[in-house]
């Protein structure tokens, strides 16, 4: 049965819907553009510098790891570029170059590659890196100190820090609308609520992230913040304030939804999101840290494998001891 023609053989199915990791990465990057544009327009070239360096470093770290592991380069799928982009967006515009280099090393190598690369990381790489930076160099993420030389035309205070140490009185001058359009201090890509909402909606529409996680995160955060606010309005800020400050929105749409570290079943997604929202407010209001998103999401990442065991009964499964 010799045949000169060589046909391609492979296993069924012979169609694919065309979705790819690369496409998902690019969707995420497109979704980040509005928030990014706002950050660059506010902070100018230094912000663009941080973002560009962060993306480039993240990709180089992955390339280096590919080289060490003797793998085919995998940077073309842009997943490390997304990590670099998101890490850059969390930093203040004045972040020095070495913090970006170290941070992306922590994100790509420590946060992801040592666990076996993409899909194998137990914690969100971006948050792993930012948490280590936060603990090691607390001054780097102190937006008061970092942004002291900026005067973009609105009061440059970091609302979460103000409210934590001085009470609600200190931020009474900031309206919700101002927070929504980004008139607050913060990371390069985090202050502008409206831009992040647009990005999140884009990602949900394209099926890159799951609405269950984002919505339950926001709802969990709002309910918890409301309870605190109702208990002591002078000490705890209102739910809307918590929603629009700090890393809340970038967390809800870009960080908590990271594929490898979030659940895939419906009810677990709701528990995961709501849990992260709940913990965020808890840490902000009664914890030691100014912003709780980083540790809240990391803690829920830790719980993810356990939560995700709540899954529907497969077809034809016979329960023996039911």
């Amino acid at each position, binding site marked *: 049965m010799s045949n000169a023609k060589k046909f391609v053989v492979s296993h069924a199915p012979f169609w694919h819907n065309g979705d790819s990791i690369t496409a998902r990465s690019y969707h995420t990057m497109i979704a980040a553009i509005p928030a990014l544009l706002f950050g660059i327009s506010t902070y100018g070239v230094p912000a663009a510098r941080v973002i560009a360096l962060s993306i480039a470093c993240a990709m180089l770290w992955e390339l280096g790891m590919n080289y060490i592991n003797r793998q085919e380069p995998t940077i073309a799928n842009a997943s490390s570029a997304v990590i670099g982009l998101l890490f850059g967006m969390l930093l203040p515009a004045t972040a020095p170059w070495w913090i970006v280099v170290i941070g992306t090393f922590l994100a790509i190598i420590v946060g992801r590659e040592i666990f076996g690369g993409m899909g194998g990381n137990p914690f969100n790489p971006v948050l792993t890196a930012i948490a280590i930076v936060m603990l090691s160099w607390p001054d780097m993420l102190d937006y008061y100190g970092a942004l002291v030389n900026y005067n973009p035309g609105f009061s440059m205070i970091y609302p979460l820090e103000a409210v934590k140490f001085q009470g609600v009185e200190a931020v009474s001058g900031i309206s919700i609308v101002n927070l929504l359009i980004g008139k607050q201090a913060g990371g390069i890509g985090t202050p502008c609520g409206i831009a992040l909402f647009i990005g999140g909606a884009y990602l949900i529409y394209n099926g890159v992230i799951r609405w269950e996680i984002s919505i339950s995160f926001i709802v969990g955060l709002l309910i918890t913040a409301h309870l605190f606010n109702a208990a002591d309005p002078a000490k705890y800020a209102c739910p809307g304030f918590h929603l629009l400050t700090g890393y809340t929105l970038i967390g809800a749409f870009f960080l908590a939804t990271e594929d490898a*570290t979030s659940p895939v079943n419906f009810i677990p997604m709701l528990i995961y999101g709501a849990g992260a929202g709940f913990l965020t407010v808890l840490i902000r209001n009664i914890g030691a840290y100014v912003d709780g998103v980083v540790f809240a999401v990391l803690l829920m990442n830790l719980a993810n494998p356990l939560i995700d065991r709540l899954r529907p009964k497969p077809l034809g499964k016979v329960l023996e001891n039911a």
Partner: protein
Amino acid sequence: MKRSFFGSATPAFKYAVSPHKIEDIPMPEQAMLFVDQPKNRDRKYVIKIGDTVKTGQKLNVFDGVEATTISTVTGTVTDIQTYRSDYGQTYAALTIKTVNDDMDEAIVALTQAPALNTLSPYSSNLPGAPNLSVFEQYASAIHTVVINGLDDDLLVSVNQWAAQYLTSNIKAGVGFFKDIPGVKRVILTAPERMLSVVNSSGAEISVIEEIYPKVLPAFIMRDLLGTVLPAGDTTEKHGVTFIKAEAVAAIGQIVSTKTLPISKVLTVVKRDGSCQNVRVRMGTPLKSVFDALNITTQTGDRIILGGPMRGTAIYSENIPVLATTDGVTIQNASDIPRVSTDPCTNCGECIRVCPADMPVNVLVRYLENGLYQEAKDLCDLLSCVECGLCSYVCPSKMPIFQYIKLGKYELSQIETAEEQDE
């Protein structure tokens, strides 16, 4: 059927409507017949090159193995080869130079008075390969026969065609099944648009949604019969057997016209995705089918027996049309989606698409590492209905379906080995 970069619409898997037009493929000069090869090594051929076979004749190929395959052509054996198929299946492939049909007497006698016990040893040779032996194997425990009016893969429309245009044969076939002792219900599943045609078949009609994979047996069991099939069980164990409409028509042909069906309908899916139904003598090499339809193949193409979701890619176009072959799909080199070595990113697309609610994301991790027993115990490997949708949606382009099939195969091998040890 591809997802666009922008837009959230997911393609719906509706079946193609079977065209009425059918083209007859002429009798080939050379036919090929496949005979199951026994697994033991000391097999001895009793057939040799130069032997003549008659249409309908039992093919005694191996010493000491009772023949169940019958020839669908008359002619002289010119070559005997071994063909290896998927999952360790091997066949003896007999090449036969064909002459005009000469019917074997034994088979003529059989078709004159068809009965369950005489037909059942040969049933796998009939178009659609009905398995009639289950009625004997399970004594009279089979109470329901489900005739599938839709095919088990997209684009293929052989059963649709048979249900719509072979109505008198279907009717005779339904009568045959109704007379089998123990059978209480004969159900024909058909989409709504076929109702007016199939109403006269004499079978109980069940309307089913024309959406893949709702037509696979496990879902028909659940949706129409209200029985959830326990994972890993055959439908026969629960008194239900599934038979293709084409097979029912073939049995109907024997009953009503006393002739042996030796041709079958085949859906040819061309490069541009258009489908054509042809009637072809079983045993015709695919090459002859392509030649008759002016299809040329070249290196780098992919030829698939069956449809795009569940078919089998083959490496030679000399493979014949078998009783089980419902479709043949040709793909251009440029249309072939590649699989990749990317790992699972846990995005959950497979979880949402899986019609059997399986934990595919965890399952695939076990399967990748060869932990088949754990995959079965912890991740319900046997619940899989083999629709292929998980691989279809996977952004990492993992061959999930292949892992699953391999896992099931390896488990069955382990079980067989254990049984032999006992």
